[in-house]
């Protein structure tokens, strides 16, 4: 069982990123996933968070209390949620938006996610797909091909989000989570 929290600020596409991973796992790989989200009255701004649980068998408890992997694309969500990571877990942040705190007991990775989307891809709204790419490389949460299928199904074949995802795959330092259960 793999438990992931994706977080950032409202408007960054955090929830969509969680849904894409869930669709890849459930529809294209035949495994189980449950996705929940904090759901407030705000449309933009405020901490956005989605919890993902992925397993080979039916999932009962739908929330993530202690995550194997936490992604924070914003300082606020980093500060508020870093205690949700299990000791020694994997924490991925955006290099330009989050200042790392060395006291957090996690393997922390700072990646140029937003900068890559803005400067290189000229598509700031695709930072979430870059993040999904990096996450796939680092954790093996889903096969790249099934994520591509999920993105194409949701946004259309040839959509720029596919290129953003592929770029994201290369942003990560390589596989850092080795789990036999996922």
């Amino acid at each position, binding site marked *: 069982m793999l438990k992931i929290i994706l977080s950032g600020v409202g408007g960054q596409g955090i929830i969509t990123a969680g849904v894409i991973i*869930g669709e890849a796992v*459930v529809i294209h790989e*035949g495994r189980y*996933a449950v*996705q929940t989200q904090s759901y407030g009255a705000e449309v933009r701004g405020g901490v956005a968070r989605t919890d993902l649980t992925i397993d080979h068998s039916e999932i009962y*408890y739908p929330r993530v209390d202690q995550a194997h992997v936490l992604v924070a694309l914003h300082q606020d969500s980093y500060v508020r949620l870093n205690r949700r990571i299990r000791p020694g877990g994997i924490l991925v942040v955006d290099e330009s938006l989050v200042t790392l705190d060395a006291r957090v007991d996690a393997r922390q990775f700072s990646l140029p996610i937003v900068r890559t989307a803005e400067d290189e891809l000229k598509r700031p709204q695709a930072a979430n797909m870059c993040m999904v790419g990096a996450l796939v490389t680092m954790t093996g949460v889903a096969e790249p091909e099934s994520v591509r299928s999920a993105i194409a199904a949701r946004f259309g074949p040839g959509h720029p989000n596919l290129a953003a995802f592929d770029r994201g795959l290369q942003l990560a330092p390589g596989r850092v989570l080795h789990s036999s259960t996922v």
Partner: protein
Amino acid sequence: MEAATTSDRTLFVHGNQACVEGALYAGVSFYAGYPITPSSEIAEEMSSRLPASGGKFIQMEDEISSMCAIIGASLTGRKAMTATSGPGFSLMQEALGYAIMAEIPCVIVNVMRGGPSTGLPTQGSQGDVNQARWGTHGDHAIIALTASSHQALFETTVRAFNLAETCRSPVIVLYDELLAHMRERLILPEPGDLPLVERLRTFVPGGVDYHPYLARSDGRLPMSDFGGVHRYNVTGLFHDMWGFPSTDPTVVHELMHHLHDKIVQRTNELASYCQYALEDADTVLISYGTPARSAMQVARKGRENGHRVGVLELETLWPFPAQLVRDACANARVVIVVEMNMGQVRDQVRAAVREPSRVFLANRVDGEFIRSKDISTVIRLVDGHGV
């Protein structure tokens, strides 16, 4: 692992969409509603799906008119539904009573949020269980169903439409915000996989007397599409077999018993439920909706550690399956009801079992989801181990 590539009938959707898919599978062709969190996605989805399949979607000015509109649509022969949350469900109660009295099939979905009043709009609760039972006035029976997963919610929604037709009654589908907004797998059944009950229409031809409220020997009342070949009266007053108001004590007595018996006498048949490891359980967890998922988590972990914990998950809340509960708890040392309210089903369980003093409540009413630990803590307390 299952097949690597699943068919296009496998979806990853939120609970409100699972409800919509179930309703469409059941043949809904009319929706009237006033969107309200956390049910709004049902209206949103229906507003595109129904017109695309030849149905009608109307956004009404409020929940009173929404309920009235589905009653009218149902009378003309449509399978009709609305969806709302607690505050809107309050406004629907008068017309709900009318639908009960006039025996009009329809489905009302209430996605529960915290209450009373506008309460906690975006957070989960199960505070409307008793409202579903007694929200409208007068002696009446009602059917209310619930579910804890998207697959079950799909099937529950289909069943709600079926029972509405079979019993000629409004049927309420109750579920909580967490199920409404979380996403998980839903595999759409093929057409024909689940049985569907279609409208029972009268064979009486035009020009021949049709008695809209004359029951057949099996208790069912064939309907004639309103505005079709028969002219008849529909009223919220006690009425005779013609549908005309009556204060004749015999007519009133028989109608009251008919409305009551057609549901209450089928309590055991209507009782839908799931069970886990109940056979030798000394600790029985009774739950429904998403809290049942935490109860399952606790029971499975408990069994791994040698504790005799079992789960009875109710999918029919009304009429309350008292005999089912009594039997499941017969050998239990402790019964713990797990729900997100102040004990609405706990009270029913206490009334059903032989030893009410053994029934306890594990609840949360702060908008947060019930965690396994919330349940384990109550088990420890009841067992005398402290927190």
